[in-house]
């Protein structure tokens, strides 16, 4: 009998546990609802949770679950009813409940012996009679999973959306494209950083840069707007590769010519002239192309030597600019809080072909600079939260504190050039960049500059609340559809 009474006590314990588990899961399901509601309201920007609210909301379900479980587990159960339920589920012909009844009344006799004997013979697996229930487990588990996914996605925005694998690709692409462009002297890339006065230096800058990459990564993966960005990333990479190869061949050719001239051979051979002409056609930089064409047509050995040096210096200067900007881009110091610009980040300038070769600290965001026609077609009334100006709206930057002038570490460089025969510099501008029409360059050609620091500043200053990226992205999509 002792063993059967132990079984009955074990059934009681299990019944209490199962009941407590069910109540706890029910409480959890109820308590997780405010968390999800809070989260959704905040994502929809209907409501902004105060500091500490998330902590309370995160702790609330746990506390509720633990408390309800402990309380309910300690409450007594209706043992006869539980035993009858066990009997019915096991098909034990109400023997557990009858035995318990006899035990409670202190009855002995032949019937009790028969009951015990039959219960022992049947070897019932009583623990199968009190299942927790799938619904009781699946519903809270599903809610918890949903909450976990939503909260996690808000904590790690890079993991959102289909552009997840594109984020590092964008950064790499930006770097490689700027590097190659500068090698060819067709593009200036400069790292420009400034701290948002309202944000903590290290964390916010790092987060801001991260968010920016997310935005750009997302933008890469969107359908392309005509005329603003290359619609073929493969083509872009191929173009960069071609430019790198041309630069390498130019370097080798100049070295070979120098060596031969140093040995006393005067003039260029026809083969060298043809090679220079071919390279001139391949090089995207207009100035370098002109220099190469001049070099190829030069007959005078002394003049040839001089042009050769000029060409070499030009190539080196472009190479140096490329290295410098790449290095700056790599070590952008987010802790530089002394800078009071409009934000920190990379600033790409993208003049149109035919513009000046190079222009240091060009204030593309200078006051009164007109926005490119297509660029200003974005939603005029749509301002990012806390922003000082809309993207591409009036085109009025903060002229009193140009990003490049605040810190020598952050330089703004604008290089005008063309790439290949078609020479669309804009092909290398990441889709969705806030482009502005730069003042006319010295050559008279119009230039389009990417006001990257404005983008960067605005994004980092707002620390990208959940859902903001989507707004930025939509905004970019709209302005880039307006034209080049």
């Amino acid at each position, binding site marked *: 009998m002792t063993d059967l009474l132990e079984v009955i006590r074990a059934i009681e314990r299990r019944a209490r546990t199962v009941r407590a588990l069910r109540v706890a899961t029910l409480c959890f399901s109820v308590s997780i609802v405010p968390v999800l509601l809070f989260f959704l309201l905040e994502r929809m920007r209907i409501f902004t949770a105060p500091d500490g609210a998330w902590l309370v909301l995160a702790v609330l379900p746990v506390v509720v679950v633990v408390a309800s479980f402990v309380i309910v587990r300690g409450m007594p159960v209706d043992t*006869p*009813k539980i*035993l*009858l*339920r066990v*009997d*019915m589920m096991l098909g034990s*012909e*109400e*023997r557990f*409940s*009858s*035995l*318990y*009844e*006899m035990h409670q009344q202190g*009855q*002995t*006799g*032949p*019937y*009790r*012996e*028969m*009951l015990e004997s*039959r219960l022992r013979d049947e070897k019932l697996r009583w623990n199968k009679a009190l299942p927790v229930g799938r619904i009781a487990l699946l519903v809270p588990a599903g809610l918890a999973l949903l909450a976990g996914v939503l909260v996690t996605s808000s904590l790690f925005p890079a993991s959102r959306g289909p552009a997840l694998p594109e984020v590092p690709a964008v950064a790499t692409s930006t770097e490689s494209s700027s590097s190659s462009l500068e090698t060819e002297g067709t593009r200036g890339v400069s790292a420009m950083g400034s701290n948002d006065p309202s944000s903590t230096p290290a964390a916010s800058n790092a987060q801001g840069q991260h968010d920016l990459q997310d935005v750009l990564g997302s933008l890469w993966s969107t359908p392309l707007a005509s005329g603003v960005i290359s619609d073929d990333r493969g083509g872009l990479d191929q173009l960069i590769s071609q430019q790198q190869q041309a630069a390498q061949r130019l370097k080798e050719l100049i070295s070979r010519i120098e060596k031969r001239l140093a040995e006393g051979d005067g003039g260029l051979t026809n083969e060298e002239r043809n090679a220079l002409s071919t390279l001139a056609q391949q090089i995207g930089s207009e100035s370098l192309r002109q220099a190469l064409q001049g070099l190829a047509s030069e007959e005078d050995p002394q003049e040839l030597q001089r042009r050769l040096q000029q060409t070499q210096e030009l190539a080196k200067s472009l190479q140096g600019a490329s290295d410098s900007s790449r290095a700056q881009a790599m070590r952008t110091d987010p802790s530089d809080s002394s800078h009071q610009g409009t934000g920190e980040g990379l600033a790409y300038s993208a003049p149109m072909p035919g513009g000046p070769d190079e222009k240091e600290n060009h204030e593309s965001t200078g006051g009164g600079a007109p926005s490119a026609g297509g660029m200003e077609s974005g939603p005029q009334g749509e301002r990012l939260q806390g922003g000082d100006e809309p993207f591409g709206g009036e085109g009025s930057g903060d002229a009193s504190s140009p990003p490049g002038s605040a810190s020598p570490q952050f330089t703004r460089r604008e290089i005008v050039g063309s790439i290949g025969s078609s020479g669309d510099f804009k092909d290398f501008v990441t889709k969705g960049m806030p482009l502005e029409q730069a003042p006319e360059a010295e050559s008279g050609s119009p230039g389009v500059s990417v006001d990257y620091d404005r983008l960067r500043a605005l994004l980092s200053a707002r620390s990208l609340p959940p859902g903001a990226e989507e707004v930025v992205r939509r905004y970019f999509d709209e302005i880039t559809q307006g034209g080049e």
Partner: protein
Amino acid sequence: MITTSELEASYGAMDRLTSAISETIVGHDQVVRQTLITMLCGGNILLEGVPGLGKTLLVRTIASALSLRFSRIQFTPDLMPADIVGTDIITQDESSRRFTFSPGPIFANLVLADEINRATPKTQSALLEAMEERTVTVGKETYRLEEPFIVLATQNPIEMEGTYPLPEAQVDRFLLKTSLGTPSLDELVEITRRNTEGELQLPSPVASGEEVMICRRAVRDLPIGSELRRYVSRLVLATHPESEYAPNDVREYVEYGASPRGAIAVILAAKANAFLSKEPNVRRADIEAVFHPALNHRIIRNFKGDAEGISVESLLKSVWEKTAVT
């Protein structure tokens, strides 16, 4: 409290009794079982069926197998109560004359009240005290009936002209009410064979009245879980139209539900059913086995139920299906 040996003896007696009955009675297994249940519970049973189905033979067989005193009362419209319970008659000896009580046929262990609905209500009511109290009062004297005392009443459901339906109070005193159906082909063949070849033999006594009383104790000692007891109570309450447990059709077609005596009958009969199955406890299956015969004569339909031909059986089925065990 019943002992193990008494329990084993009871099981033995029941085995012998059922075996002896089956040698005489062909078919009617459920009726035989319910008759035995009634006997084990100390109750009375109302057998309903057309003439010639073997009702009387069944009662005589049981009486014969138990070596109990058996009496048969054929109820007729002119039957008087004194014809049942007995009367005081004047006896005269050498010195004096005095009234002495002459017991009626009710003074037996097994009483077959044949076609009980043919007697007047006054005569029918003569059975009330005997069936419930196990006593008979004649004049100023009350006489106790010998145990075991069982009334087995029959009534013919088709010849209703000139009959007096049993009053509700009397019907309620029957533990079970059961119907005898027409035998199957094989059973009918066997019945004709036994009754046309040789002489019909009633069984010899295989159990005594004392053994029946021990069996009754064994039945009452049989355990039933408190939740099952609550379940039976809910079932009985569900037959009342005003009850919260009542299903819709009960609310619509029932005038009066089963009395507490009905709940007692269900539990006692379930215990007896478990005992006959040699189970150590009452199961839900035992309750189900006796639910209809224990309650079907205790439900009184209202006018609407009568008019629409709603059977009590269907109402009880609804109650059984719609009442949760826990």
